[in-house]
């Protein structure tokens, strides 16, 4: 019996279905409770069907756009920035990890400060970045990159450090040049860790890009979010954004997972 349970538990489709169902059930139960106790339940927890209906309703909520259209249009801007920031952050993170690995001195000097950059709130950073770049949209990309590079940097660095001594010894014997050691040993060995970093950074990049939308109010999910939260339009727009951004987060991490298996065939065990 237990055996059987375990087997079912390890079926891929079951896991997905299980979790989705579990979430839906919890959500709906809570929604019913909320609906019975609150005056305006949709502000707290609407029923799922209401959100779905809102997604497909053609009613104009903002300008000439329906809720879904508004979300998608804004998402276009936001995700483009988020994507650019994520790529930039990933690259910077990787490069930083590489630099810190290459120079122990630099690594020891810089590492604590990398963490500090993370801590400077966007509010403090934004005006400075803006005065450097002179353009609000470039600033947004840069800030999204700053907010997402750190997980990539730490995880990749950890990956570099996880390479066994024996592998170094081997390359040492061949008198491999530094760049060859990096190219042939360190970088491939750090790849799985780099991908963990990306997976952690992806939602941060989404969050960051939504956050930086609100540096100035010209469009993007962040602005739509604060408007809909303010009840300036249908509150369902807000719920759509919540679902949409979670969805994007999952999709991105799935895509990263796919890329990971694509570039690491030795892990594909039959």
């Amino acid at each position, binding site marked *: 019996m237990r055996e059987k349970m375990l087997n079912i538990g390890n079926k891929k489709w079951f896991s997905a279905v299980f979790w989705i169902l579990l979430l839906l059930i919890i959500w709906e139960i809570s929604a019913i409770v909320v609906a019975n106790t*609150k*005056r*305006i339940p949709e*502000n*707290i927890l609407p029923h799922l069907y209401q959100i779905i209906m809102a997604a497909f309703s053609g*009613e*104009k*909520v*903002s*300008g000439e756009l329906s809720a879904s259209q*508004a979300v998608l249009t804004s998402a276009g801007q936001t995700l483009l920035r988020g994507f650019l920031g994520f790529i930039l952050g990933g690259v910077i993170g990787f490069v930083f990890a590489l630099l810190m690995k290459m120079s122990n001195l630099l690594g020891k000097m810089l590492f604590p400060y990398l963490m500090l950059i993370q801590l400077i709130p*966007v*509010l403090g950073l*934004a*005006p400075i970045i*803006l*005065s450097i770049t*002179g353009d*609000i949209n470039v600033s947004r990309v840069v800030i999204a990159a700053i907010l997402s590079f750190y997980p990539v940097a730490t995880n990749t660095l950890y990956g570099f450090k996880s390479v066994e001594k024996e592998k170094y010894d081997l390359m040492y014997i061949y008198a491999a040049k530094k760049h060859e050691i990096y190219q042939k040993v360190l970088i491939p060995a750090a790849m799985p860790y780099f991908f963990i970093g990306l997976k952690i950074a992806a939602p941060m990049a989404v969050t960051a890009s939504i956050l930086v939308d*609100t*540096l*100035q*109010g*010209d*469009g993007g999910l962040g*602005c*739509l979010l*604060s*408007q*809909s*939260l*303010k*009840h*300036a*339009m*249908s*509150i369902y727009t807000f719920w759509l954004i919540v679902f949409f951004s979670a969805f994007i987060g999952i999709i991105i991490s799935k895509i990263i997972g796919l890329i990971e298996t694509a570039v690491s065939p030795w892990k594909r065990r039959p």
Partner: protein
Amino acid sequence: GESQKETTSTAENEKKEELTSKDIIEKAAKDGKVGNWGLGNEYEVLALLAKYDLPTDFLSQDFTMDGFDDDSITLASAMTYNELGLVKNDYEGGYGYKDTVEYIDMNDEGVAMLEDNIFCSKDFAKENPETVAAFLYASFKGWEYAVENPKEAAQICYEYGSSVSKEHQEYMADEVAKLVSTDTKGEKVSDIGNMDEDAMKQTLDIAKKYVSLDDADANEKFQNLTLDDIRDTSFYEKAQASDGKFNVEKKKVSIQLKWLPDAQFMGYYVALDKGYYKEVGFEDVNIVSGGGDIAETTAVNNNTVDFGVTWETNLASADASGMNLVEIAQIFQRSGLVLVYKPENY
């Protein structure tokens, strides 16, 4: 709990008439259920609480009026042109309380502070006097039109990428028109943009009393600010006296709003839409929406934009900390802040 609440409210129905705003404020303050957003919006409320010798504590309201709706805040801050509409009306996003809610008006309580103005940096004003005057002239024209035709103005805002529903936009336009054309005493004003001495002084005085800056230097400077340090009436006068012909030094200008684009700023959108800016010689006026983390004072100060819309208090505190900004026109002539409550709670 619902029914119980109803019975108490009917029982106290007759008594309700006699309740003064003082009673209401006292009770709300005692319960710790006075709400405001903070972030520079709270001084009028503080002044009001102080006026009745109450402790100056308040709860933070988030973006929504949910706290008011679920009674975690019983005396909630609201802007007449925005939150109040949402509380009363039952269009999308509204709470639909209609006229069952009542409110205390800051103007009536004598603690009104002035809100939306137009400002720029002192250097900019000095170097581009014609530009500044021309910009004011065209903007006033836009506001004038908007005040007279709020419905059309709302429509224009709606088309300029507003993210506010149409119904709410129209409500806003009506209410904003009132703020632009009525003063703190409730009297009609004819001149848009007028920097009323008394009202501005009252704003600054309240600000001095309740704004406490952690930076000791800035705080001292703030306390010593006079109206003349933060405003310049010459451009307003020049615009009022002008025949509409200007020789603008800078043909492309921008103005950053204090919040996301909506009818709160309908004057500028109307001026843009009707070509008033073009008429005075601008090639392009860029209306940059605000409401973001880059405050309008910062944006004007670091020259990302030329003009900005902010509140007198923000302008004063910015100047106190070293910025060199100056108010050139006062668009809202009275405070838009009210404290809304459900009578059945009192």
